[in-house]
């Protein structure tokens, strides 16, 4: 079988961490190849090597049988490889055409023709129609819906012509229907002779479109081969590695009193209300009004509120500040360290030292800057601080984004335990599966309106509510 791309024995270390340990990977024309693994498994690093963004410490990159050394992504692009990154790389203030010219590296270039020499005929024409649907060259990118923005990313990736497409977690920002459309499009791309690598940790979602799959764990290949004969459960076990199961705490007993209300949504003690929504439907604003970060218009809350913001490093913590300072940041008025206008830093540090143990935060000391902590430990720090105020209402926004399995379990467990202890918990996650697994009750926020989800609704029905389709 011919190969468009081969990675042979790739190793890469970041400091003391081996991100990739002698990983081999190959890609054939006409296939959709799933690259699976937990966060930190090395999936993105491997594809960054393939795209010339990272130089490997060892190993070879072979493109169409020719050993190649990419100095930067533009080399990779010229070899016919395009990459769609986790974060959009189009420039919101510019037009579609300008973004495509930029990607092509030439003003006025005829860009956006994702049909390299290998791709001709009806399949390629159909692919092009699908890609351009709802896109006009003069559109300003910031005005486009998410699905169209992502197709623009694909057009950009292929702007100089290419038949290899690497996609890093492309479904994370999409609603179920948009995911389905994307997968059809990728199938078309492969059908026209292209090759696709799909990086994801959400296996179930893409299982049906893959031809082959490679599973990474801890920087090593755990499995590679055709999907035929594999099951979602089997591959998940390979991906996660341990047989750990998420412990569930039953929220036994009846619900408590209504502790919070916002836009017609009432949240009672002892329940976890999950919010499902597509980016930009007003859920962010709703959570922040509820948490009192924005003026609490239309929101009413009984008792102390804790807020777990989505962005740990710009909103949850001040990375340059010590852990003690970050504790005081969230609890400036706490009587244990507040002395009139003064702060008793020793008292605060003593408490922070205790919290390190209580929440098993891996840090050498309370005086260390928060940026030295891993993402999971930063989130533990935020939870420790949030629970320190004995909140009756907890508002969490994408609380496990970017965390590994164990940190995710920690977060889920803490939220469930808080609810079991009588608190009202509201969780929004852009990952529908997370909302489904965590919530005792589900609502959808669509176009700034709160819609109750009927018990027993299917994923598709919830998805339809999320994109605002009337069922």
């Amino acid at each position, binding site marked *: 079988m011919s190969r468009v791309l081969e990675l042979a024995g790739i190793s890469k270390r970041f400091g003391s961490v081996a991100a990739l340990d002698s990983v081999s990977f190959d890609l054939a024309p006409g296939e959709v190849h799933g690259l699976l693994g937990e966060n*930190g498994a090395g999936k993105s690093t491997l594809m960054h090597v393939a795209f010339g963004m990272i130089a490997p410490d060892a190993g070879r990159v072979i493109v169409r049988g020719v050993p190649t050394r990419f100095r930067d992504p533009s080399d990779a692009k010229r070899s016919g490889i395009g990459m769609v990154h986790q974060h959009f790389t189009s420039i919101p203030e510019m037009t579609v055409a300008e973004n495509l010219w930029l990607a092509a590296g030439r003003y006025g270039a005829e860009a956006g023709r994702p049909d390299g020499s290998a791709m001709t005929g009806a399949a390629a024409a159909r692919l092009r129609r699908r890609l351009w649907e709802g896109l006009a060259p003069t559109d300003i990118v910031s005005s486009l819906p998410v699905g169209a923005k992502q197709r623009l990313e694909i057009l950009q990736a292929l702007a100089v012509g290419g038949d290899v497409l690497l996609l890093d977690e492309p479904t994370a920002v999409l609603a179920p229907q948009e995911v389905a459309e994307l997968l059809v499009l990728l199938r078309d791309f492969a059908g026209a002779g292209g090759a696709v690598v799909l990086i994801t940790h959400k296996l179930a979602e893409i299982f049906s479109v893959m031809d082959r799959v490679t599973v990474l764990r801890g920087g090593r290949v755990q499995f590679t081969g055709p999907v035929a004969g594999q099951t979602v459960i089997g591959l998940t076990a390979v991906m996660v590695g341990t047989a750990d199961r998420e412990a569930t705490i039953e929220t036994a007993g009846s619900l408590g009193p209504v502790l919070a209300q916002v836009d017609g949504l009432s949240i009672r003690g002892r329940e976890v209300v999950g919010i499902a929504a597509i980016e930009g439907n007003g859920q962010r604003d709703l959570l922040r009004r509820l948490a009192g970060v924005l003026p609490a218009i239309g929101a009413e809350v009984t008792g102390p509120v804790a807020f777990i913001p989505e962005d740990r490093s710009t909103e*949850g913590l*001040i990375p340059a500040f010590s852990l003690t300072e970050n504790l005081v940041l*969230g609890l*400036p008025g706490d009587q244990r360290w507040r002395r009139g*206008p003064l*702060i008793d830093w020793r008292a605060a540090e003593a408490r922070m030292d205790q919290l390190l143990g209580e929440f098993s935060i891996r840090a050498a000391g309370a005086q260390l800057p928060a940026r*030295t902590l891993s993402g999971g430990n930063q989130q533990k720090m*935020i939870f420790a601080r949030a629970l320190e105020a004995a909140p009756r209402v907890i508002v969490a926004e994408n609380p496990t984004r970017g965390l590994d399995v164990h940190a995710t379990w920690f977060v889920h467990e803490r939220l469930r335990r808080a609810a079991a202890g009588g608190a009202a918990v509201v969780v929004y996650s852009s990952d529908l599966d997370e909302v489904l697994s965590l919530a005792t009750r589900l609502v959808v926020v669509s176009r700034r309106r709160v819609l109750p989800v009927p018990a027993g609704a299917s994923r598709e029905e919830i998805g339809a509510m999320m994109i605002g389709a009337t069922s």
Partner: protein
Amino acid sequence: MSVLSRFRAPLVAAVLGLTVLALGLSALGYDAPAALAALGRGAFGSWYAFTSATLVRAVPLIVIGLGIAISFRAGALNIGAEGQFSAGAMAATAVGLFVGRWSGLVAVPAVLLAGAIGGATWVVVPVILRRRYRVQEVISTLLLNFVADALVSFMVQGPLQESKRIYPQSDPIAIAARLPLFPGTRLHLGFPLAVALAGFVAIVFSRTIWGFRLKAVGAAPRAAEVSGRMDVARTTTQALLWSGAFAGLAGALEVTGVTYALFLNLSPGYGFTAIAVALIARLDPVGILFAGLGFGALEAGAAGMQRDAGVPAVAVSVVQATIIVVALLAVARARLARPEAAA
């Protein structure tokens, strides 16, 4: 951090700055050794030179520098201290001319307070522009420096001009409004006041909730707002007003302690030099005290250099610029060198 490493960057900066000056002077055909010797004599040549030139010039640099540290800490870049200094000097002169019958115990505080209020007032416009119209304070404070220059020029040829109406300067302020001098020197009471202020600001920065708020807002405004529930706009407003008040106070100290009258070009660029002072001290009040002394020596030496070696005093701004750049590079290097968190 050891004492040595804490002072290393500033010392390196000072040595580099003087080296650049020496090289530049040589390249332009000046007698560099003679110029540097004159600079040293002007700053440290005698007890009188040290107290009456170096320390006297250190006072405004320390006081303005403390104010700049307050605003920079909160992430507000007030680079209009020069104008605020002038506004403070004008207000202090205006009050100082009319307190002749008062006791010094009342007159001096009144004049200093007037200066601080004058300086804070000069920041009111940038504050309003920032809050209501989102105009960057960098540009607005900078532009107001030139307005202040023109206003001083108007004052000393108009309402505040001396009664003889000959020179563009004010009458001397009342004796009661003048700061006492240390015997045998021209060093005034403003120096111990500056030292005390540095200590006070150090405590405010390290021990108070307000100081913590400044630091949080400056380091991460969104985290301060979301996780700290702080009013970011209010905190930066306070910081800007206080930094203006400090610069205005420095202007008042100059009038009541040194010149006793309002002149054109009262400040030889103290407002800009103080930025270097604050930055090289990394906004640390005690550091500002020492950096202020160092730059005071430089300013005093510059005067000596111009007098004895014929090198224009403006050359010292090359040293100051070099020191700012070195301070910036030291900070940038520290930022680049520190390990980022593992994902």
